[in-house]
């Protein structure tokens, strides 16, 4: 037996120290992006006034307080939680499918949510008198229904990556076609509303969406962090994970269920948002490597950061109104996707 080797211990400690520093820097960037997102908007409120209104709390009866607490803060927090959910779900979809180009879209869950929303918009489905709540609920239910379908197909075939990806692609085409059918048959106004839902619009943010998205992100992330070592091993290959004694099928199932919930809650309220779930994991992985103890929180952080930056850009690009954030994330994401495609050309 060798004596304790301080060099090796120090190597491992140094790797983790640099990861903690990167994580803290990313959190600082997220905080700055939060301030920027709160400060930018059609009502001209400075950073000082924003901080004062934040400090005063929701009860104060000033214009700034109403703008901040009723409009901007729900949007900003929704950005963080939806982006975080998509970032974490994207990472896990890539891990369980062993495919770096997979994203929440790959499993067809987003397409199903869009179809659910389209049905709700077409028939005017309301919950407790609220149309938006009916739309969100139906989007969520369809997303979960598709997740169950993919799961049962996966169970039949041992949750193999091929089955997951192929079933997801089939679901994507199927529900996209159904949504297009509804749009084609709907009146011009309804078709317009359905279409705008698919862009991902932060204007639909409410404190309800903040609460649901926030609780699901925290709860889902904590569960996934409990499996962080097994997920790290799975990222080194399925055969390797099996050989290390990991029940890969069971792990994939658990991760799939949590990811499905995260994707469903993320798209149910504000609509589908592209590329965040693809780009955030890759940025985080490039900086931190594959250790999921650090990678998973950073994916959530980068997902939120990307959404916040897209939100700021969308507000600046369309003064007086707000460009749907889903359009901006796609514009940012497409060049990055090309870089990835070139990189993984083999």
């Amino acid at each position, binding site marked *: 037996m*060798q004596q304790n080797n301080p060099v090796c211990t120090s190597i491992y400690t140094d790797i983790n120290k640099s990861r903690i520093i990167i994580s803290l820097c990313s959190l600082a960037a997220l905080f700055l992006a939060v301030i920027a997102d709160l400060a930018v908007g059609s009502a001209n409120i400075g950073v000082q006034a924003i901080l004062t209104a934040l400090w005063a709390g929701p009860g104060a009866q000033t214009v700034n307080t109403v703008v901040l607490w009723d409009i901007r803060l729900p949007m900003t927090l929704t950005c963080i939680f939806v982006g975080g959910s998509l970032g974490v779900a994207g990472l896990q979809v890539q891990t369980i499918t062993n495919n770096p180009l997979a994203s929440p879209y790959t499993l067809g869950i987003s397409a199903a949510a869009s179809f659910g929303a389209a049905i709700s918009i077409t028939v005017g489905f309301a919950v407790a008198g609220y149309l938006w709540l009916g739309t969100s609920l139906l989007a969520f239910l369809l997303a979960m229904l598709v997740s169950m379908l993919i799961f049962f197909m996966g169970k039949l075939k041992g949750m193999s990556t091929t089955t997951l990806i192929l079933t997801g692609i089939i679901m994507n085409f199927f529900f996209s076609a159904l949504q297009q059918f509804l749009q084609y048959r709907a009146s011009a106004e309804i078709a317009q509303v359905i279409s705008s839902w698919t862009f991902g619009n932060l204007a639909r943010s409410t404190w309800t969406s903040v609460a649901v998205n926030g609780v699901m992100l925290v709860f889902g992330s904590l569960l996934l962090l409990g499996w962080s070592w097994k997920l790290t091993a799975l990222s080194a290959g399925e055969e390797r994970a099996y*050989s290390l004694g990991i029940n890969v099928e069971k792990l994939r199932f658990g991760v799939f269920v949590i990811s499905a919930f995260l994707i469903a809650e993320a798209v149910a309220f504000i609509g589908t948002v592209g590329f965040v779930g693809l780009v955030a994991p890759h940025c985080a992985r490039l900086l931190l490597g*594959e250790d999921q103890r650090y990678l998973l929180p950073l994916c959530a952080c980068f997902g939120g950061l990307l959404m916040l930056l897209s939100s700021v850009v969308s507000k600046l690009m369309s003064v007086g109104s707000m460009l749907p954030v889903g359009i901006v994330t796609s514009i940012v994401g497409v060049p990055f996707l090309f870089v990835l495609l070139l990189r993984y050309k083999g």
Partner: protein
Amino acid sequence: MLQLSIENLQVKYGSQVIIDHVSARFNGGNMTAVIGKNGVGKTTLIKAIAKLVRRGGTVRLYDEKRNYSSQDIAYVPQMGNAAARLTVFEMVLLGLVKDLRWKVGEDQIQAVTDVLTRLNLLALSQKPFHQLSGGQKQLIFMAQSLVSHPRVLLLDEPTNALDLRHQLIVMDQARSYTKETGAITIFVVHDLMLASRYGDNMILLDDTQIKTQGPPQEVLRPDLLESVYHVKVDVEKNGRGYFNVTPIAPI
């Protein structure tokens, strides 16, 4: 002495029988080569021993003091396309995945250090795994398996796609671990010369069953090899005492 005994081992994929009532005994400190043509169930046999596939029959691992479980058996799969962005140190650390908690223990860091030192890989510990050569990757996979001090080491084509130097380095490391710790190593290999050089014993599989087993001189008989591989062969011992098997022509 450590003993591994398999009795009436049976593996089926659906209705297809892959391994049909195979029995064998392996002794500690010995290496056994499993040979046979493609598709006869060599990989399935060692996966069944490691309990990585559903199997019938019994597998017992024991010595004078105690019985061991399948946790004491390490399986090293064929070198796949592992492209994870992990350092060599982290890759080896994953060999302890079942015991890892949020904070990695000093004893676990020490275990990784020990195995990297044993395999002369300490200098690579900070290198990204995906930047290593094929031979280095195979050694890292072996280190990953050895870090938990397994009593049985199962190697699936460990020299596949490796150059001559790395073939010898990988097999020498397996042999030194086997001899020094009294463990049992079973390796699947296509190269009959390598099999006879490193195998204290050999198992020749044919059509889901063991055709013959024993020391290399008993297994590497031209008549046996010709009946299994359907190739006419010359077998001779060279000046260094190693067997040369030269394929002449398909039968």
